[in-house]
């Protein structure tokens, strides 16, 4: 005990401790960065108007402040928006160039369908077809006008629905014609003629409604609001194109909180806008969830059956040991390899064959012979099946042999033993495997990129159109959304907040699932710990 700490190797203990610290810090940093960047974005930030020394102006959200090495304010980054007027969203201004900086109450921020945000002041309203109370102050009049426009727009939307019903009907008839033409034979000509007769009124209806919808929309778009930027440049915009209008400098904290919740709701429920850099994530969330659910549908039964076979039915021997190691190792095979397998086997192999057998009339346009949610989920199922097998096997192996013997000695068949005893006992393990595999599947992107994920899917894989599940459709996915918006988008800087929010959402889903799996597993370990059988 007389030895010095250095001789005892305590400093090396510290070194190993530092390694652990680095590991934990890295994790905390990653989650922290995502949360800081993701959570804050929806909070309405105040709008600053800067008068510059050279007489110019700048208006927008202050996004960053750079300091010199001496700690003085060096320059400020403004998100100036108004992409249609200025071209760029962001602007750096030297602190020295700023004469005054103030935060006017009536500074308005507009979220728009196109060109990103607009920052400016309400100038005037030109209401052509909607009426609002002229006695209101201008800002309230704008809100009332927006409500009125929204109401009319919903009517047009319902018109659009019947247009899309017509369009589906036309597509159905067109495919039927193609099929008849492909099959040929007696009566095909008559059939085609009959179908074309059917097609004519639908097409007429489609054209008429379409034209009406377009006309009413154009009419509605003639209701405009004119805003001026800080320098006085005006921009006239259809009220319809304004998604959100707010005056952050005049908002109280509860109002901001409400605004925040509204944005979160939009995120979860709305479609994306502006090539995915704004708006909601609903299709991506839906695609991710449906993908994972479809995947579980394939991988859980397959994995459990394989594990039961290996653990309970197969004769233990060299072969089974080799198979077990092989299966275990498949969990370590790169996911891109699964992806390429999915492409080669499912998409081109199985999908191509299905097209030749069942949809020959649509060729060369592929139906199943191209990436789609079915193939992506099957590929993911293959990727996660080893996880389920390994975990289920472990759970079954952890059941003491005495349980099986006792059951058999009571006259139970092997299947009864399995069904009534082993599977219920192993259930937490199986569920852990299930949760782990869903966590892995939800976060996996590489194999999806080549088996059917797209940046913008025209329709969800599940809708009201017969047969409701459209397993051949392409889909959107949160993980791919991150990659696509963060790396393929034309304006990466402006898209960053959206990517952080998507990341936050994906991280929350995956880590949430993992924590569930960890908790389940720990509770299972406790159950057998210290029990002598």
């Amino acid at each position: 005990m007389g030895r010095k700490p250095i001789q005892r190797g305590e400093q090396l203990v510290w070194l190993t401790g530092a390694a652990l610290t680095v590991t934990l810090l890295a994790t905390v940093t990653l989650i922290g960065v995502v949360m800081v960047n993701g959570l804050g974005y929806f909070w309405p930030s105040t709008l600053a108007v800067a008068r510059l020394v050279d007489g110019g102006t700048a208006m927008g959200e202050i996004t960053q402040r750079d300091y010199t090495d001496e700690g003085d304010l060096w320059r400020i980054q403004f998100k100036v928006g108004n992409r249609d007027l200025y071209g760029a969203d962001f602007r750096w201004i030297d602190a020295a160039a700023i004469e005054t900086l103030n935060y006017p109450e009536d500074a308005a921020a507009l979220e728009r369908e196109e060109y990103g945000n607009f920052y400016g002041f309400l100038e005037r309203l030109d209401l052509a077809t909607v009426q609002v109370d002229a006695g209101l102050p201008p800002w309230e009049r704008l809100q009332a006008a927006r409500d009125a426009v929204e109401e009319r727009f919903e009517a047009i939307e319902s018109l659009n629905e019947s247009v899309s019903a017509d369009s589906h009907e036309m597509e159905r008839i067109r495919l039927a014609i193609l099929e008849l033409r492909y099959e040929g034979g007696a009566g095909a000509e008559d059939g085609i003629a009959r179908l074309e007769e059917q097609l004519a009124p639908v097409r007429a209806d489609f054209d008429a409604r379409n034209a009406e919808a377009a006309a009413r929309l154009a009419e509605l778009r003639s209701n405009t609001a004119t805003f001026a930027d800080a320098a006085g440049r005006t921009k006239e915009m259809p009220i319809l194109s304004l998604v959100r209008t707010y005056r952050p400098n005049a908002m109280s904290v509860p109002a901001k909180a409400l605004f925040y919740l509204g944005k979160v709701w939009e995120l979860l429920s709305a479609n994306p806008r502006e090539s995915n850099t704004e708006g909601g994530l609903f299709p991506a969330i839906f695609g991710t969830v449906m993908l994972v659910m479809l995947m579980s549908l394939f991988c859980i039964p397959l994995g459990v059956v394989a594990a039961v076979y290996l653990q309970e039915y197969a004769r233990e021997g060299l072969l089974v040991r080799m198979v077990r190691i092989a299966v275990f190792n498949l969990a370590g095979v790169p996911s891109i390899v699964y992806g390429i397998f999915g492409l080669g086997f499912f998409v081109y192999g199985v999908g191509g064959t299905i097209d030749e057998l069942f949809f020959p009339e649509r060729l060369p346009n592929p139906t199943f012979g191209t990436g789609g949610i079915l193939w992506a989920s099957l590929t993911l199922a293959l990727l996660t099946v080893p996880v389920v097998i390994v975990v289920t096997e472990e759970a079954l192996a952890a059941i003491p042999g005495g349980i099986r013997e006792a059951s058999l000695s009571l006259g139970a068949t092997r299947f009864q033993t399995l069904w009534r005893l082993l599977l219920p006992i192993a259930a937490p393990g199986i569920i852990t495997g299930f949760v782990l595999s869903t966590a892995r599947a939800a976060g996996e992107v590489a194999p999806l990129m080549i088996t059917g994920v797209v940046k913008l899917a025209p329709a969800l894989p599940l809708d009201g159109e017969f047969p409701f599940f459209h397993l051949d459709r392409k889909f959107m996915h949160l993980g791919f959304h991150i990659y696509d918006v963060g790396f393929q988008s034309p304006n990466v800087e402006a898209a960053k907040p959206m990517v952080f929010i998507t990341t936050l959402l994906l991280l929350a889903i995956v880590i949430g699932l993992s924590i569930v799996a960890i908790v389940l597993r720990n509770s299972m370990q406790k159950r057998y710990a210290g029990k002598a059988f």
Partner: protein
Amino acid sequence: MNAPQIADPIFQIEGLSLFYGEAAALKEIGLHIPRRQVTAFIGPSGCGKSTLLRTLNRMNDLIDTVRIEGSIRMDGEEIYSPEVDAIELRRRVGMVFQAYNPFPKSIYENVVFGLRIAGVRNKSALDEAAERALTAAALWEEVKDRLRESALGLSGGQMQRLCIARAIAVNPEVILMDEPCSALDPTATARIEDLIFELKKDFTVIIVTHNLQQAARVADYTAFLYLGSLIEYDVTSIIFSRPREKRTEDYITGRFG
């Protein structure tokens, strides 16, 4: 070897040999086991007594490499003939294991498990059987108020009695006990031994034990096995007082084993 004359034996074992792969674990064993009596198999570790016990309800079938020669008849019927179903046989020949192995279910579900898998769905029949089995296993009074609780909460001795109750709930003819008390303390052991004494009124009990006093206390007949061979088989009192074989005497007097 002089075997005792047993009228109406339940098992007739003739020339039984058992091999694990190439190695013989039992060699040319022949003995008759009396009905509604307690028979004990004794012998040093690895002598084959547990293996012999497990041949009686074909639990050895579960091991792939086992091969059996000779014949075992139960009530005159060859149990290894292809027509006999092992599952059917196990319903008639129950078993209690060395390590108590209740299922991770409630006490009640443990007891009625055998009946449930046999297809009994009638609630009152199950209740009745559970009470009968637990009473027979001398456990009813201790657990009747917590039948729905997990069996894993019982003490070791209770768990083993629960396993006995589970075995007798299906109403077998024979109960095989493979060192049932080896994991228990002396008090619990005594209770099990009392129970065995009670059980032989209704069941044939065959017990494997390495505890010679236990065999002397509970068994009517005792068979001594050594290195896979049956050395001596007789009424317990004879085995323990005047064994015919030198090896039996050496074992009983503790010179080896």
